[in-house]
C-alpha cells in the first residue's frame, strides 16, 4: 500500500491495535461536551471513513454499526441514528475507496464531503420523521469542518505506517 496510488513509497501494514485505538480516541473526542457550538467536526466519521478507504477488508459496516451505537449513547440521541448514518458512510466509502486513493489529500477531502453531508442528511431525516425539531442549517457546517479535518487526520493516521527512507543501491524502489 502507498500513501496514494500515485506515490512510490511503500507503507507498512496498518496495525490492528492502532486502528482500534484511533477509533477510541475519535469516540472520546466526540464525547467532549461542546454544547451548542456550531461546526464541531464529527471525529468518528472522519476516522471511520479513513479506515474504510484504507483498509476496506478490515474496517467496514459492522464496525460502523458498533461505533455508531456508542456515539448515540454518548450523545443521548436516538439509538441507531448515528449507526445508520455510519453504516451508509462505510458502505459508500468502501465503494469509492479505489478511486479516492488516486488523488492528493485536499481532493480526497472534496470527494468525501458529499458523503459526510449525506450521512448528516440521513440523521436529520430520521429525527424529523420521529417528530424532532429542525436544528437549523448551521447543523451541516459540521460536515465541512470534518472534511477540512480529513487532511491533517489522514496524515496523522498514516504516520505509523511510514518507514524510514533507506536508499539501497540494489533495490529499484
Amino acid at each position, binding site marked *: 500500500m502507498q500513501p496514494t496510488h500515485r506515490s512510490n513509497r511503500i507503507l507498512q501494514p496498518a496495525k490492528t491495535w492502532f486502528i482500534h485505538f484511533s477509533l*477510541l480516541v475519535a*469516540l*472520546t*473526542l*466526540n*464525547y*467532549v*461536551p*461542546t*454544547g*451548542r457550538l456550531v461546526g464541531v467536526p464529527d471525529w468518528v466519521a472522519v476516522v471511520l471513513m479513513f479506515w474504510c478507504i484504507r483498509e476496506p477488508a478490515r474496517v*467496514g*459496516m*459492522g464496525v*460502523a*454499526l458498533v461505533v*455508531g*451505537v*456508542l456515539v448515540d*449513547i*454518548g*450523545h*443521548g*440521541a*436516538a*439509538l*441507531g*441514528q448515528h*449507526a*445508520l448514518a455510519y*453504516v*451508509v458512510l462505510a*458502505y459508500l466509502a*468502501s*465503494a469509492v475507496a479505489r478511486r479516492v486513493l488516486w488523488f492528493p489529500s485536499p481532493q480526497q477531502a472534496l470527494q468525501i464531503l458529499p458523503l459526510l453531508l449525506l450521512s448528516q442528511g440521513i440523521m*436529520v431525516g*430520521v*429525527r424529523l420523521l*420521529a*417528530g*424532532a*425539531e429542525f*436544528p437549523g442549517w448551521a*447543523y451541516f457546517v459540521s460536515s465541512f469542518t470534518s472534511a477540512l479535518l480529513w487532511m491533517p487526520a489522514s496524515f496523522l493516521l498514516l504516520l505509523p505506517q511510514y518507514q524510514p527512507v533507506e536508499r539501497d543501491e540494489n533495490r529499484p524502489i
Partner: protein
Amino acid sequence: MSLVGHSSPPVFNRGPSPFTRFLVLVSICLVMLVADLRFRYLEVVRQTLTVVMHPVQLIAAAPVDFVRDATVYFATLVEVQLENAELRRSQLQAAQRLLRFEQLERENAHLRRLMEMADSVGVKSVASDILYDAPDPFARKVILNRGARDGVTPGFAVVDTDGMIGQVSRVYPVQAEVTLLSDKNQAVPVQVQRSGLRGVLFGNGKGPLQLRFILEGSDIKVGDQLVTSGLDGIFLAGLPVARVIEVEPDDDGFMRIMADPIGRVDRAIQVLVLGRETLPPGRPDPRTATLSGPESPLVEAGGPAEEQGD
C-alpha cells in the same frame, strides 16, 4: 462444485456481498430506531452501555470541566461582591417568607387533621448544577450533575429560583438529562392561577410556549400566571411555569395563547429537582370499575398510595 455452475473456491469466499451486508445492517439500524423512538424498548441497553462508556465520558468531559472551574475561580472581585450583596438581599426576603411558610405549614397540617383529609404530598428535592447542553442538536436538553444515585427519578420537575425550567427525562447513575420547557416534545399540564382554568402547555422549539386546547371565550388574559396543576400525578402542584403574553382567537374554535417561561430556561445554572416522595396510585382499571355503588374506584383513588401504576 455444483452442477449448474462452479462456486468460487474458499480462498476467494468472503461471505455475502457488500450490498447484502449493507441491507442487513441498515435494517438492523431501522429496527433499533423504531424500537427506541416509538416503543422505548432499548432503555436497558442504553443504561448498560452508558455505564460501560462512563470512563470515556469522564475523560472527554475533563477539559470542559476544567475550563468551567477555571472561569469560576478567576471571577473578578467586583462580580463576587455584587453577587454577594444580591444573595444577602434575597436571603433576607427568603427568610421572611420561610418564617411565614413554616407557620402556614403547621396550620395546614392541623387543619387537614381536623378535616380528616389525606396528608399533602411529601416533597423530595435535590439541589443540582446544570453541567452543559446535551450534544443532541435535535432536542433542547441539558445534563445535570446528579443522577439515580442521588435520588433523581424520571419525571421530576426541574426549577430554578424563579420557576420551572424543565423535566427530568432520562436518569443515568451520576447524571440526569433534563428536557427543557422549550423542547418541541415537552408538555406540562398547567392551570391559570387567577381563574383555575386548566390546559396543557407545549414547547415550540424556539420562542415562547403555547397553551393549547383552550376554548374560545375562556377566562384568560395577557399577564396571567400559569402554574403546574399537578393533575398528571407527576409534578407538584403550584410551581410557577409561564406568563401569558398573547391571547388571540384562532380559526378552529380554540384560542392561540402564547406564554413566556418564568424560569430562566436557557440560562439557569443552579437548579432544584423537585418530585413527589411517593408516586400517586395508578389509574383505576376500567374493567374492574362498577358503574354505581359505594365502592366506586374514585373513592379508592383518593386514598394514600398503595399500589404504584406506571
